[in-house]
């Protein structure tokens, strides 16, 4: 088998052959920019961080001797005179998922080199993200006002407050970092910073990967912390 056939004539095959071809290729395994490959690996590592947080939370929830507070009651908001369970959380989740939609549109517009649309869609994503963080601040202050602290709370097991502040805090930091990241890239898109770069607007997609990840993590936090 001559080397020219083996290594240079790389065509895109699918399925098992494609997998083998990717991994047996010289120069690079994936046909993507370095930044994108690195973001994949980083997100894999970050997945393990959030998994450890969630498994740790579930483990203390089972270990603790005090009863666990009912999230439907703790996270209820008064609307039209009735307590609506998880009202704020539902709105927050909706906003974050919407922001994933605007992000996906921004990636698409980036590949079409529509700088203006990309900028505005990324800005919209950042604003939605910032409003999510804003609502989280509201939620935190409401709970703190009601006496929830990392070391104890009036509703039941102390681990409720500990896990809540730790996990939502860590996720909120990720969202905040994401908003800053989005804004930096958005304004660079606007200024034409990526116009003559070899990898061009692929950076928008890399930013999008991070943003979708943060969104996905929220879905798991929502399911395991608020709904359970």
């Amino acid at each position: 088998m001559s080397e020219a056939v083996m290594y240079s004539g790389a065509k895109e095959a699918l399925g098992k052959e494609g997998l083998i071809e990717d991994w047996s290729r010289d120069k690079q395994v994936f046909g993507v920019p370095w930044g994108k490959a690195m973001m994949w690996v980083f997100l894999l590592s970050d997945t393990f961080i959030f998994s450890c947080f969630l498994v740790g939370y579930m483990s203390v929830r089972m270990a603790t001797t005090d009863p666990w507070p009912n999230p439907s009651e703790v996270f209820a908001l008064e609307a039209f005179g009735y307590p609506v369970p998880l009202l704020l959380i539902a709105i927050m989740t909706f906003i974050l998922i919407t922001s994933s939609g605007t992000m996906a549109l921004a990636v698409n517009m980036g590949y079409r080199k529509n700088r203006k649309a990309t900028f505005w869609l990324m800005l919209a994503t950042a604003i939605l993200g910032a409003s999510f963080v804003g609502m989280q601040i509201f939620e935190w202050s409401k709970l703190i006002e009601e006496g929830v602290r990392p070391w104890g709370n009036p509703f039941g097991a102390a681990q409720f407050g500990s896990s809540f502040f730790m996990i939502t805090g860590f996720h909120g930091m990720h969202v905040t970092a994401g908003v800053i990241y989005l804004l930096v890239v958005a304004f660079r898109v606007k200024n034409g910073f990526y116009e003559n770069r070899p990898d061009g607007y692929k950076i928008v997609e890399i930013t999008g990967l991070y943003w979708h990840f943060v969104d996905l993590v929220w879905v798991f936090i929502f399911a395991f912390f608020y709904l359970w």
Partner: protein
Amino acid sequence: MSYVAFADRDHEQEHHDPETFFTKYIWSQDHKVIAIQYGLTAIFVGLIALGLSVMMRLQLGFPNEFNFINPEDYYQFITMHGMIMVVYLLTALFLGGFGNYLIPLMCGSRDMVFPYLNMLSYWTYLVSVIILVASFFVDGGATGAGWTLYPPQAISQGTPGIDVGIILMLVSLAVFIVAFTMGGLNYVTTVLQARCKGMTLMRLPLSVWGIFIATILGLLAFPALLVSAIMMLFDKTLMTSFFMPAVSSMGIDPGYSGGSPILFQHLFWFFGHPEVYIVALPAFGIVSDLISTHARKNIFGYRMMVWAIIMIGGLSFVVWAHHMYVSGMNPYFGFFFATTTLIIAVPTAIKVYNWVLTLWEGNIHLRVPMLFSIGFIFTFIHGGLTGLFLGNVTIDLPLSDTYFVVAHFHMVMGVSPVLVVLGAIYHWWPKISGKMYNETLGKWHFWMTFLGAYAIYLPMHYLGFAGVPRRYFAMGNTDFLPDSAQDLNVAITISAIFVAASQLLFFINMIWSLKSGPKSDPNPWDATTLEWHTPDHPPKHGNWGHELPEVHRWAYDYSVPGYEDDFIPQNVGADKVPAGRDRDGEH
């Protein structure tokens, strides 16, 4: 393929060489300089940890002689010794040091994919080291919780360093993990995406494979340590009860309730066991290259070696609770984890057999790196066999927390990787510095270290069988221990001081070599891998001059019949080799 690989776009890039002293040597983004910075820092903290171990041995060998070592100090010594050696020395040296130096050179890249991030990784690592060392000087001193930092004891009254030391330790670990992540992402992406033309994954030298898989383990295992460090930090500073059950400490209720100390152990060992292989896999890889080069023979079973590394890496994530047989787990867990633990022996044994079979009928040159490599095979088999004892629940129970455990893990992940580190430094020293070292002094260094290490750890196995518990400040008048146990302790201490002192030979040798050593040949060992075939010696910024290398064969074409030399470098074209005479991992 829509995306053009870097190796095909290299000529379009402009290469700027750093110009000032600061950009060249201090705030350098060159992977070789960063590697040396990592290496020097790691060796510096390693020497601190070595000093601590000598202090511990002084206390154990002569319990009543050294009044300046009190029990609190002793516990701080064991904690810091363990943590520094495992994390700040070996992890940083293998991945930050050797990983940084070897990956771009062996893959045929110009540098790591994101050099700025790489530089940031080193400086963050330095911050974590400074925080760690600072904990010696704060009020109450460093933490004395043992390197495993088990709660509740780690943050309860009576443990040294309860006020500030434990906080600094946890913060330092978190900062280290950030530093490691920045570096680790670089190493993985460089291996995957920035190789030169012709360099497939199955042509990579095993050093790169070992470092690559170890880095992946690190990226997936350190998160568990980060999370446990954050949770314990909150337990300490915010009085949360993640790990702390309701306890009464010195007659006072500290106010915790309902936490799970076992949760910490699970998180810690989910990191801790892969960590063993983060240290071991780079050593496996490097020692394979050393043995093959100095035995002038291709590595036996290259593909099997690669798959064994991958299998060990995968299995290392499902064995963690074998560190917890005496923690009060469900007994069925013990059954599961003992089984998975013993399965790891299969790929590990494959590797050992392949090293030995590589030596078999080889043209063995007993140079210093080869001596260290063969020494490694001895100590590693030794430590691996005692691992079979400790991996079985029923045998582990009586041996838990005795000197047998101390002997086992020092043999398998202390002495063995350190022998490889030393061998690797001797092997690549001519490439790094451009100078040769003194061979005779190097051999003395090897024999004193190797025999001395056996003199330290072999007797510890007997002490363990006799029931001498680990982590004790002094045995006192313990009825079940014979008096001879103390005699052995004296002998161990004397050997430990001997080994520690003999490391001076290494530093003398290297400093002499830098000052007045003879200039080395660009390829003094007649090795095949790319780093020995750089246009400049030692390699300059950008590694390859104007043209990236092109690889035509695997890394182990030694003593190929019919070829003029007894080695064919990876970048020699197929047209220069008689037909049918070259071999490749592919065939």
